[in-house]
């Protein structure tokens, strides 16, 4: 190698180093630009959570089978303020029931997680309260579909003590009515519009702290 060649080599090495440095600096500039743009546009760093819009949900049953968890993060919720406390609940009894009793063939829920409790008899009408035994519920939505024949007070929600918050929710992908969406993490639940109106009224009562607590968890727009 002649000294001339060496200086050419060094020159090209210098040029390379310069280009590499320039690439690094422009990369850094691009990243800080992206941070500024993305962080600044929203003005806040809201986390978000998956949730079901109960007004769109059709109770198809995908929530029970598509969740990545063995026991789905989706469970049924009872909105007592919309419930008619029916004697013959269409979410509890199979419409083809043989007898009014708790034999499996008469009930809709496959895991016996919907609990029917007698409350009161008034003017010959018997009223029952329906509550959900959450550890048993698998989120299949059969009761939701049944209840939709009447008041529709039962609805499905993603339970945030269970949800692992996948970046792409497998149930959302399989949802036939596009009821899944992301909402702010501070208010990670939804309610039916009708129920929301009732609960707002209840919350106006200064003594009803529970209704206000519920509202504080619910995304209201």
């Amino acid at each position, binding site marked *: 190698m002649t000294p001339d060649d060496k200086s050419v080599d060094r020159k090209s090495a210098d040029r390379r180093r310069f280009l*590499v*440095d320039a*690439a*690094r600096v422009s*990369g*850094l500039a691009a*990243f800080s630009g*992206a*941070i500024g*743009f*993305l*962080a600044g546009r*929203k003005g806040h*760093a*809201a*986390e*978000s959570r998956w949730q079901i819009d109960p007004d*769109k949900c*059709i109770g*198809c049953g*995908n929530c029970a089978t*598509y969740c*990545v*968890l063995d026991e789905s993060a989706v469970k049924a919720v009872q909105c*007592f*303020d919309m*419930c*008619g*406390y*029916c*004697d*013959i609940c269409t979410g509890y009894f199979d419409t083809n029931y043989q007898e*009014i009793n708790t034999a499996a063939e008469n009930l809709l829920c496959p895991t016996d997680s919907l609990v029917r409790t007698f409350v*009161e008899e008034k003017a010959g*009408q018997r009223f029952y*309260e329906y509550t959900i035994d959450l550890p048993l519920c698998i989120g299949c939505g059969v009761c939701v579909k049944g209840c939709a*024949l009447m*008041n*529709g007070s039962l609805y499905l*929600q993603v339970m*945030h*003590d*269970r949800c*692992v*918050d*996948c*970046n*792409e929710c*497998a149930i959302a*992908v399989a949802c*036939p*009515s596009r009821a899944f969406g992301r909402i*702010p*993490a501070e208010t990670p639940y939804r*309610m039916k519009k009708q129920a929301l109106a009732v*609960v707002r009224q209840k919350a106006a009562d200064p003594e009803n702290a*529970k*209704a206000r607590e*519920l509202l504080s*968890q619910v995304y209201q727009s």
Partner: protein
Amino acid sequence: MKKVASIILLWLLLPGLATVVAGELIPVPSFSNHEVPTTEVAPGEWSAWEVVHVVFLFAALVLATLFALVARSRKYLLALCVVSLIWFGFWRGGCICSIGATQNVAQGLCDRGFTIPLSVLAFFLLPLVFTLFFGRTFCAAVCPLGAVQELVAVRNVRVPRWLDHTLGVFPFIYLGAAVLFAATGTAYLICRYDPFVPLFRASGNASMVLIGVCVIVISLFVGRPYCRYLCPYGAILGLLSRVSKWHVRIVPGECINCRLCEDACPYGAIEAPISAEPPEQRARGKRHLAWILLATPGVIAVMAWLGTTWSGPLSRLDFEVRLAEQVKLEEMQQAEATDASDAFRNEGRSPSDLYAEGIKRQQQYARLGGWLGVWIGVVLSAKLVQLSVRRGRSDYRPNQSNCVACGRCFRSCPVELVRLGLIEDVSEKVEEARA
């Protein structure tokens, strides 16, 4: 008797049912001695954990960088691998990872209504910044997906050069497709086909589990198949690592060209020295390069055309397009109603609206498919250019873009062994290897 009574009751309720449909509810009874309870929902998790995860990510990146570049210790890197796997994989459940965050960032840039939390942004950007300065230390011991493959890479089957280069194009194509679908809000492909998330959570749907098992079985024989031939984030990191300021080195000092490191790398990232070409070959190489550059617009045009033509299957990932097709088929009585089409009918939108929307989307996907084609054309051309450029080098070096800084090569280098004081002179190791 009871049954008759209940049937009568149901009949009595039926007029009520009609009003329910019209939007009025059976009123909540007012009880004499029972308060109507309020719905209760489980509170969400403590979101400050996100901050903890980001801090841990930063700490892990710092440690991985120190272990690879300063301590030069494969043992430490492996230990960090295990910790990262447990923390980010099994405990955090794999979501959200830096690889998947690419999609959130793409959607955040394109969709005005999409919020991207700062923690997600940190997960995307921190490894990029580190790579820009120190090479792919994130891949070495922080990424849980990389860690799984690193720990199961027991056999080292060398992938032929031509195959390695061919497969090496896929991460870029995958990246293009993932960004495109995320930006349009259609799908998060990277997450949908993440092979390791079922392992982290010990659950998942059948296709995910199947892909996962396949990738892990392949990883036993071929080092890091996901990182090398699929990972879209790895594609970005590879590009950045090329210009990294302090990249990991095989030799701590002067390379003695003993060739002992050549087989140490299961990822085919060690490049042997090559001489600069003699002038006549150089001239031929230049002509070769000129032809490739000339052909580039053609390649891009062909790929763009292919992308446009094949946009049909692409658009089928879109919910609205699928729904429009389904409803149309049902109208022509060639398909049974599905949950989706039932839900659509209950919504009260007219089918013609849906068709118009579907066609609009399909045209949009034809355009996007074209752009994806352009991207693929650029990637292919860049690969060809890269293959036809030959730069002489006099020592064994890691290929900065492919090297994941796993540290397997350190102990194979006699110079390193001398540095560590394990042998007196390089010749000991070299002679032992020859024998």
